[in-house]
């Protein structure tokens, strides 16, 4: 199956610039990378979100991000931004 890579960039409210890159194969996420000038506490929490998204399909993105960001404080980036951007990469 063909590996597809898509990126979406967005200037989110508060002025931070966020870029989400998703590599997927047959609609399933192989790798996600969320980069930009935002803050996440703990920082590793965001990396955990990236790991947990591996294997997810577009319909599983919301639930996965919501549960994985439970203990993470995001500043300059909303959980909803992550969900929307990852979904957009998969569409």
């Amino acid at each position: 199956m063909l590996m597809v890579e898509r990126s979406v960039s967005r200037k989110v409210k508060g002025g931070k610039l966020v870029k989400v890159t998703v590599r997927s194969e047959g609609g399933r996420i192989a790798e996600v990378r969320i980069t930009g000038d935002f803050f996440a506490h703990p920082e590793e929490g965001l990396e955990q979100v990236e790991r947990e998204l591996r294997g997810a399909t577009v319909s599983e993105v919301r639930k996965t991000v919501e549960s994985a960001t439970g203990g993470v404080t995001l500043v300059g980036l909303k959980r909803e931004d992550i969900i929307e951007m990852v979904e957009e990469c998969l569409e």
Partner: protein
Amino acid sequence: MDRLRVISFSAHDAASNMALDEAIAKAVGAGASPPTLRLYGWDPPAVSIGYFQEVEGEVDMDFCEANGIGVVRRLTGGGAVLHTRGELTYSLAVSDRDPAVPQDVQGSYMKICAPFVSALRELGAPACFRPINDIEVGGRKVSGSAQTRRFGAVLQHGTILLDIDERLLCALRAKMEKLRERGITGHAQRVTTLRRELGRRVSHGELSRAVKRQFKEQFGCKLDAGRPTSGELCSAPSLAERYRSVEWLFRR
């Protein structure tokens, strides 16, 4: 916070600066060191990028290499910053249980930035805090900060622009694109320096003194002129090696 250790201004390379901030934050979080304010500079000049940033998108590595500009990924989130000799950088490390620093992130930025806002006002610049993490004069950014909460500590570091070396701005890709679009004046519209606002040069020492006075007053603490402990100095070199590594710089 009853007492605050203050480590006076000295300039170091990028990796050493980041390593020392981390070593101090770890010692403070472990209760081995008191709350600490460190004032420092960058020699040679450097670009620091935020923890979550992509180095390729932010930094012109060839320009940095050709001009002897260091490049380092910070432990803290936020954006890419060009650090030249015309700035004062600070780091504040406090236990995450210290009631002097609010638990909520936004509140803590405001609390830690407040002494810097007052110090700038004391020097004659009408500064104000601009959420999330900036200080502005006349609507232009003069200072930015970034925070992490790890090791049982809150570590916030930030910079105050005394003067700017516009030739080195080429090191920042995003800035370059904006400069191309709007010219150098575009940058000058969003960013300012103390020299520009006050019409005179302000030294690191003059600003440092004002900052120390304001910390003492606003945090109601005694200041102890200090140095890094031997423990902090021992752990810094191996941390600096990590900050210098290709794996760390290109990890995102």
